[in-house]
């Protein structure tokens, strides 16, 4: 019996029900169990690692756009310069996931300023999340190529910088916004502009989403201090 089952397993027979042959009998010595064969696993591991490394390199060179959707934890975003077309801003309320440990005494809701930009380029983007002691630090766009984002929406509790707008309309109803394609709640103060330029941008965000984020010169690291 031992030799026959040995032959089937070394041939890589997959259709065999693994439950059938391995009911262990106490009298039959130590039970035969399934096991990971290193060489077999390497057949998949080697190309998988190569492709993963390739993806990382492509992203770092800015050839591949990656998509972000982060929330629940506040994180800091800084950039030396932000240029965007199609800008909207309105107040709103963010709900955390039920029972989130980040809720604290806020009751799971935070008041946020939602900014939406149709398309934006950012210079020297830096993003950090405090993971309790260490910070996950993501930097990009430090070189000649800049970070590009389309349909960028951020929910921030703090926003500072030196801003310049063209064709700004202040005091619209948030539900009538047109410039960036996002509509806010009815009856809420809002503003919109054709173009926006913010120098020394600094945001504390609860959520960022972008349809496409291009991150040339991506660098992801853990650091003791944030941005």
């Amino acid at each position, binding site marked *: 019996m031992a030799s026959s089952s040995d032959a089937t397993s070394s041939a890589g027979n997959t259709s065999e029900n693994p439950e059938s042959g391995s009911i262990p009998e106490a009298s039959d010595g130590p039970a035969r169990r399934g096991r990971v064969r*290193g060489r077999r696993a*390497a057949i998949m*591991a080697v190309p*998988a690692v190569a492709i993963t490394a390739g993806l990382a390199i492509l992203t770092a060179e800015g050839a591949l756009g990656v998509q972000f*959707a982060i929330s629940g934890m506040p994180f800091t975003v800084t950039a030396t310069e932000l240029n965007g077309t199609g800008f909207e801003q309105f107040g709103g309320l*963010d709900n955390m996931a039920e029972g989130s440990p980040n809720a604290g005494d806020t009751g799971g809701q935070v008041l946020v300023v939602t900014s939406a930009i149709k398309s934006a380029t950012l210079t020297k983007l830096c993003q950090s999340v405090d993971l309790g002691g260490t910070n996950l630090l993501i930097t990009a766009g430090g070189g000649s190529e800049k970070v590009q984002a389309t349909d960028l929406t951020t929910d921030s509790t703090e926003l500072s910088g030196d801003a310049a707008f063209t064709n700004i309309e202040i005091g619209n109803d948030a539900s009538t916004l047109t410039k960036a394609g996002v509509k806010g709640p009815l009856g809420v103060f809002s503003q919109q502009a054709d173009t926006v330029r913010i120098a020394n941008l600094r945001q504390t965000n609860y959520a960022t989403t972008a349809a496409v984020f291009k991150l040339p010169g991506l660098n992801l690291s853990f650091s003791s201090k944030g941005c």
Partner: protein
Amino acid sequence: MSEPPRQGKRAAFRRWRGDRPFWGGLLLALGGAEVLLTMKASMKVVLHMGMQGLAGYLLPALMLLLGLLILFNPAQRLFYSITGVVLSMGTWATSNLGGFMIGLLLGVVGSCLSFGWLPDQEPRVSRRKRRRQARALQQPAAEALQ
């Protein structure tokens, strides 16, 4: 040599684990769950972004599903693990760099372990035990020569 047969729930769990690529399936499912946890954008924004936003949720959800399928239907583990490794790598582009790489690595490692798993192998022999067996074989031969 032979271990005393263990009884109770732990022995049953150990036997159940021996019948399937347990760690591979578990790691793949955990990886999918980790990526899903980092994807908490509000549904309104996802709907606004359309299919591209939905894929960010779809891929890790499928990873989680495939991990569980590997655990509960190990006979089809080759298909599940190959699909799993492709999906894990896809989350790099769709879901926060694969849950900041943690979920992606868990998924790839889990898929590889499931792919390399074979049922019904000889029990593992520790190096010390193997050496002792070799010595036991050599000694009678040496005595016979004298």
